[in-house]
């Protein structure tokens, strides 16, 4: 049985979130699962498109579902939290509101595309947890983790308002996956508090403030690394640590890594292939464990 998923990267995973794509592909290769990129996919529309025109926003996102359906596959993997939510919401709204369905259907028809309503949108966290399972992850671990405790940060749109990835307020699957790979986690009460998304770019001070709070709390709980599942969360927590250091007078230099990077590392992935060099913050602490873990210990 060859396992295979159709994969929708979205704009971020090709730019600021490149390490997410690199580590996801590496991790799934290590697990012998094939990922097929959706051909000629378009931007999901994220939050901004929806703020201007609702019908077109759903029609835009529905094109990706339509392209997915045309491949004959049943499931579409969307790692970016915003993409994931938009795809889910599109199907939800099209199903619940006949007027919305009518518009989306007509729009797709004008482009000779079918409705993509047989496609199930999946997130890698939940695929790893449900389809692949903790036991299989555990059995594949080859590297002993030496990077210290990890705070698992879920952010908002992957866990809300649709509950398939995990519980909306106190999710635990990321912790369970990392623990299965031998990576200790800490309690983190702000795990689903929003990072502010694009606010760091628009109302800069407010955006940075939200991220300062998130980082301080992770550090206070003893975390040495923050794990994320969203390219925007990773970017915000990673790129503004210089400013946050000044603002909080704390000596923070924390690696902010995708959970796929951490799992990929435990499963023996190559540091370069997992995109560790793309982190802006935390390179110094990372260097310690990236080199220390060369002596690979069988850790089962």
């Amino acid at each position, binding site marked *: 049985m060859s396992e295979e998923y159709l994969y929708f990267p979205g*704009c*971020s995973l090709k*730019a*600021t*979130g*490149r*390490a997410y794509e690199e580590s996801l592909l590496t991790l799934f290769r290590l697990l012998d699962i094939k990922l097929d990129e959706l051909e*000629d*996919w*378009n*931007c999901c*529309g*994220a*939050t*901004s*498109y*929806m*703020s*201007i*025109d*609702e*019908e*077109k926003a759903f029609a*835009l996102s529905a*094109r990706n579902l339509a392209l997915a359906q045309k491949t004959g596959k049943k499931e579409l993997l969307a790692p970016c939290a915003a993409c994931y939510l938009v795809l889910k919401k599109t199907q939800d*709204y099209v199903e619940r509101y006949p*007027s*919305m369905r009518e518009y989306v259907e*007509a*729009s*797709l028809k*004008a*482009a000779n595309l079918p409705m993509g309503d047989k496609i199930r949108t999946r997130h890698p966290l939940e695929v790893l947890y449900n389809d692949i399972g903790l036991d299989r992850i555990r059995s594949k671990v080859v590297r002993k983790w030496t990077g210290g405790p990890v705070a698992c940060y879920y*952010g*908002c*749109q992957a866990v*809300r*308002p649709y509950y398939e990835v995990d519980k*909306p*307020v106190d999710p635990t699957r990321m912790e369970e996956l990392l623990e299965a790979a031998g990576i200790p986690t800490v309690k983190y009460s702000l795990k*689903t*508090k*929003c990072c*502010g*998304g*694009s*606010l760091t*770019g*628009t*109302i*800069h001070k*407010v955006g940075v403030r*939200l991220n300062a709070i998130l980082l301080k709390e992770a550090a206070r709980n003893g975390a040495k690394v923050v794990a994320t599942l969203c390219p925007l969360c990773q970017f915000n927590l990673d*790129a*503004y640590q*210089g400013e946050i250091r000044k603002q909080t007078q704390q000596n923070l230099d924390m690696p902010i890594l995708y959970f796929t990077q951490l799992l990929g590392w435990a499963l023996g992935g190559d540091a370069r292939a997992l995109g560790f*060099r*793309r*982190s*802006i913050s935390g390179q110094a602490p990372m260097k310690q464990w990236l080199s220390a873990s060369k002596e690979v210990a069988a850790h089962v």
Partner: protein
Amino acid sequence: MEIKRQMKHQKEATPEWAHQITKLPGCEKLFSCIQCGTCSGTCPLSIYMDYTPRRIMNLVREGFREDALASQTIWLCASCYSCTVRCPQQIQITDIMYTLKREAIKSRLFPKRFPIPALAREFYGMVSKNGRSSEMWLVMRMAMKSNPMILLTMIGTGWNLFKTGRMTLRREKIRRVSELPHENAKAMEVR
């Protein structure tokens, strides 16, 4: 200093507008709000808002259209859905915020030179045309339409992203632009 009346008169409200809003997708439950304030309490941004989410809900259902639509609140909402999943009345507050954003854009009541609606409009234009967003160009256009000084806060970050291979100057575009909703809308009108 100009002294203005701060209290609103009922006759300044348009309750019919509130009723129209409740007919839109996601806004059906607006009138079941009990003003408990759970939304404001859970909102990570309410402390920066001109009206908290609870107050926006009340302004909308009483029909104070312009106050709600011209607020910064609706744009500061980052759509994290915290309020929506916690509302004891199952009001989809995030979706109501989206509806208000769209109304504000349509009626041009959104705060001018405020970076968030500027970003949304530029993003919309770019994605409608190319089918993808090119982060670097988007940020430039947003700054030009709101406050170019924003770019100063981004130089360091931009350089760091460039060094780590996370930023390009390439303009992203899909191959079959003709399949995008804007092109389809033209075809739908012809029919």
